[in-house]
């Protein structure tokens, strides 16, 4: 029992790294993804955004991350640590998905909402920030929560380039003990608890926002 407890502590050392990757990646993803979705809506940049989204979705995340860490950054002579590289690649990857999710939400809003803003002389920045995006985010909120959960599970790929996350910690413990079962179960337990937490927080936000009406 005591041994199990110390195993939990051992694997638990990875939690902080996993969470940093998750939050960094998600915030980069949502910010950049929003910019992409707006650029895509506005016309001229549409082909570039489409191309980016298509490439990101059409290749494995593990490959994107390896490409960035082992090839692109060294070639450009940019030294970057594992965490930053991870956040950058998870963020860019997530941005493509977030942009697609937002696009769906933006397209499902009545065109009249944009036109009403236009006839009232509301500048574009304010229109997006205060009229369009609040409605869109409320409508796609559950999908965004799913995206965070997917991202959390994908952070386990960081072991390809190193970094002490939950998965990596459990692998090291396995190597020490020559046994996989307990360390992997502990890691699974941690991921599962984190997913449940995200769902719970998500539902709380959703309920809070549903006190005010969304959509039409």
């Amino acid at each position, binding site marked *: 029992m005591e041994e199990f407890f110390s195993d939990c502590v051992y694997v638990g050392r990875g939690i902080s790294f996993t969470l940093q990757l998750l939050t960094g990646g998600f915030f980069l993803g949502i910010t950049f993804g929003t910019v992409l979705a707006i650029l895509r809506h506005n016309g001229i940049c549409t082909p570039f955004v489409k191309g980016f989204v298509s490439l990101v979705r059409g290749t494995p995340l593990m490959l994107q991350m390896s490409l960035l860490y082992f090839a692109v950054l060294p070639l450009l002579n940019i030294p970057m640590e594992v965490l930053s590289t991870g956040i950058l690649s998870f963020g860019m990857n997530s941005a493509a998905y977030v942009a697609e999710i937002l696009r769906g939400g933006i397209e499902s809003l009545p065109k*009249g909402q944009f*036109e009403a803003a*236009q006839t*009232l002389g*509301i500048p574009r920045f304010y229109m997006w920030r*205060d009229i369009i995006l609040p*409605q869109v985010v409320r409508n796609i909120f559950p999908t965004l929560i799913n995206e965070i959960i997917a991202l959390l599970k994908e952070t386990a790929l960081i072991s390809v380039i190193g970094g002490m996350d939950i998965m990596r910690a459990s692998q090291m413990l396995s190597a020490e003990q020559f046994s996989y079962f307990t360390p992997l179960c502990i890691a699974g337990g941690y991921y599962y608890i984190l997913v449940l937490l995200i769902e719970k927080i998500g539902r709380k936000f959703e309920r809070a926002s549903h006190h005010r009406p969304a959509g*039409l």
Partner: protein
Amino acid sequence: MSAPLITVQQAYKSFGTVRVLEAVDLTIKAHSIVGLVGPSGSGKSTLLRCIQGLDTLDAGGVTCRGKVGFMFQDFQLFPHMTVLQNILYAPRLKEKGAALEQRAQKVLEQLKISAKSSVFPMHLSGGQKQRVALARCLMGQPDILLCDEPTSGLDIVTTTEVVSLLQSVCALGVTMVLASHDLEFLAQIATRVVFLKEGHVVADEEPCDTSSLKERYTTIFSHKE
């Protein structure tokens, strides 16, 4: 004679192969209430949208002297904002302070909707939404107000209210163009009626009463090609 407030010259507009406006000429003087009538698909909405600048003409020109407000057929209130937020949001971007809030309260009172100022649009009736949409336009202090089907979806009592509401707005010095196929409504309010048929202006006259307007409408639109 003062210069016209709105001038449309030789306006052409097509959507793909569908010709919607053809050689439309129209001048509108200040302080008039112009009704734009015609069957569904005759180009009323498109003409209003081109005057506002929501759509661009393929050829010809539109000039408006003064600020233009636009009332959508389905109002397009912002569903995530209260009534007060709906009408204050845009003017607040340009102007701050208590004077603006007071003006908002005044407009809401004038349109008899102040009791609903902290309510969200989804909890309003059609007539109330109409008032809020009108209030939102008035907050921009327009010289010209373009209304697309202002009585669609309203019952007769509410329609009568809209008539007096719009008349009071006209009394403030706002010139109005109303696209509508509600002849009873137009006969009550319009100082001039422009008939649109397949994108052409086919008649332009002063209305008398409902029955003669209906007669005119029937003669014009039952015409064989």
